[in-house]
């Protein structure tokens, strides 16, 4: 009964929102095309063959499903960490720091308890606490969340470096942290695509739960109303500040989960230069924007960005091109995604021309 009704509602929504979906699709495609074109230009200027680099990027990026999906897990969750507050009108670019603290706290908990579930939960709580702290600074002290997020990202970066090199290093391998105990590691599960890491499925389930919370619960409704119009939320008797705090807590929990899963289910230890963690939070911003802040869209968008990351590693190995191509492409795509008005104008322009012809 409930399912049939949901399906009918879903179909209705698609009909009503046809226009919206059309614009979204065009936005995503045009942004990706602009991104790859400008990326090609930069590669050409730096003296590489763009066609060769891109063919490596796509073929190698997609060749190993397990690698692709494993790498998509943390950025899917930092994508959610950006998207949830965004829907409530808050700009959370602190996914980076929240991921660090999630990984760090889960490492401490899992090595002392040997329990992966406790490790994951503690990582989520740590991320949520950091998110809530930023929300409180914003709501009660009027601190711009962008500034607070970047400051805390750097504090977390140096704090993590300090703890890794001073307290949590592996005496046998000094450039690595103590590893997650063998009995607490999450492994792979067999699927038709080969063995896939469990953490990917956990991240997908988390995305679906977030989707449910945002679109089918009162809390989600509160968040979205507060994001669209804080004034309306006030008239309706909601407190928009509560929405800010909830969304930042939930977003932070997702980034913390990303850090914990990466550690417990994939890398098992952090290197003391932090290259295993660096940049995953920022990548999440691109993931969320390309997925149009929709948790289902973010699943696919994360896989796309995972391909960029892996492709970046491969072009370094095979063509000697720098892996930061992934950052460059992300940057251009994000800038192109900041222009919804332009795409709308483009569509209405095309429509008027078609009408003129008729």
């Amino acid at each position, binding site marked *: 009964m409930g399912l049939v009704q949901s399906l009918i509602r879903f179909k209705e929504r698609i009909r009503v929102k046809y226009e919206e979906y059309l614009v979204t699709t065009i936005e995503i495609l045009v942004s990706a095309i602009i991104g790859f074109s400008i990326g090609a230009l930069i590669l050409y200027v730096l003296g590489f063959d763009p066609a060769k680099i891109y063919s490596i990027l796509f073929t190698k990026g997609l060749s190993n499903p397990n690698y692709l999906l494993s790498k998509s897990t943390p950025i899917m969750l930092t994508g959610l960490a950006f998207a949830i507050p965004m829907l409530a009108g808050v700009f959370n670019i602190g996914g980076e720091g929240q991921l660090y603290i999630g990984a760090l706290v889960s490492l401490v908990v899992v090595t002392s308890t040997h329990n992966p579930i406790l490790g994951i939960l503690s990582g989520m709580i740590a991320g949520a606490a950091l998110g809530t702290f930023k929300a409180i600074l914003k709501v009660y002290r009027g*601190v711009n969340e962008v500034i607070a997020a970047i400051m805390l990202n750097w504090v977390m970066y140096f704090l993590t470096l300090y703890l890794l*090199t001073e307290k949590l290093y592996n005496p046998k391998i000094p450039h690595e942290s103590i590893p997650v105990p063998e009995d607490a590691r999450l492994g792979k599960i067999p699927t038709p695509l080969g063995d896939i890491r469990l953490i990917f499925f956990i991240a997908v389930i988390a995305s679906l739960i977030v989707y449910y919370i945002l679109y089918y619960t009162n809390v989600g409704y509160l968040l979205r109303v507060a994001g669209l119009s804080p004034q309306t939320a006030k008239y309706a008797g909601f407190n928009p500040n509560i929405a800010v705090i909830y969304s930042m807590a939930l977003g932070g929990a997702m980034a913390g989960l990303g850090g914990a899963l990466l550690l417990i289910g994939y890398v098992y230890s952090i290197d003391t230069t932090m290259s295993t963690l660096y940049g995953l939070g920022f990548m999440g911003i691109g993931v969320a924007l390309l997925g149009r802040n929709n948790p289902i869209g973010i699943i696919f968008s994360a896989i796309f960005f995972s391909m960029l990351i892996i492709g970046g590693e491969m072009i370094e190995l095979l063509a000697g091109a720098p892996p930061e191509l992934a950052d*460059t492409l992300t940057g251009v795509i994000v*800038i192109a995604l900041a222009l919804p008005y332009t795409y709308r104008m483009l569509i209405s322009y095309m429509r008027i021309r078609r009408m003129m012809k008729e």
Partner: protein
Amino acid sequence: MIEDIISLTSNTLIYMVPLVLAGVGEIITERSGVVNIGLEGIFVLSSFTATIITFATGNPYLGLFSGVIIGLLAGVLHGFISVYLRGDQIIAGVGFNTLAYGISIMGLVTIWKQHGASPSVNKIPMISLRIRGGLTFTISPLSIVAILIAIGAWYWLFKTTSGLKLRACGEDPKSAEAMGVNVFRTRFYATVIGGILTGLGGAYLTVGWIGQFTRHISAGRGFIALANVAFSNWNPLMAIVGGMIFGFFDVLSIYLPIKIQLIYPEVKVTTLAYLFKTIPYIGTLAVVSLIIGRARVPRALGKPYIKE
């Protein structure tokens, strides 16, 4: 003791330059109603460009100039997106930061085959003032330039008609338009000027101060400059004070571990230094959360102007 005070003061004046320049630039941009959080990206890209040009020509002033050009171009890009295309200013800024980092590191790896830092390049010489007792007080010529620019910007914004028109675009663009001000053009130029000053600050990072490009050369300074804008209450004169405060935190993060090492030689400072590096960020956050409550944001900040 006196030596410490002199060295802390002169270093503060050296460290504050990018924060003051970018802060003043961003104040001009935000007073016109556009917010550009891509300061970090401009810092990275212009310091990288300045390094290349100085490396190739050996002339740090040419490097400084190339950084200004990069800032100008970044300002044109952001101005075009925010003013004429009515794009989302925050998202465009975040995208620019990622793009600038990506391009710069790609360039670093391609040109010098290095993943961490470029070779050292020539620097703009510092000015040494001799004071009593054989002590010298060292500052960069850019420290003076930055202070003069801030004073000039204050005079322009608050004492001239064109400054008033610019502020009107950020407070109430409809009324500004009714008064005959071209809101689009004013906002566009204000964004470009902001980019130019930020580009100058970014180029200073390498050719005026550090002497080489490194992966984390900016390390959040673009965002500390943004914090400086809010701290200064959108007043260029206060941005000098803010630059000194935030610059001082930065000086402390380097100075304290060195001092501790001198006093307690047995302490292992290398790893402890990571903890001291958090000082500028914690300090900035503390100042911002204790003081900003009373700040008054330009009313139309970040909202695209739509002509009727």
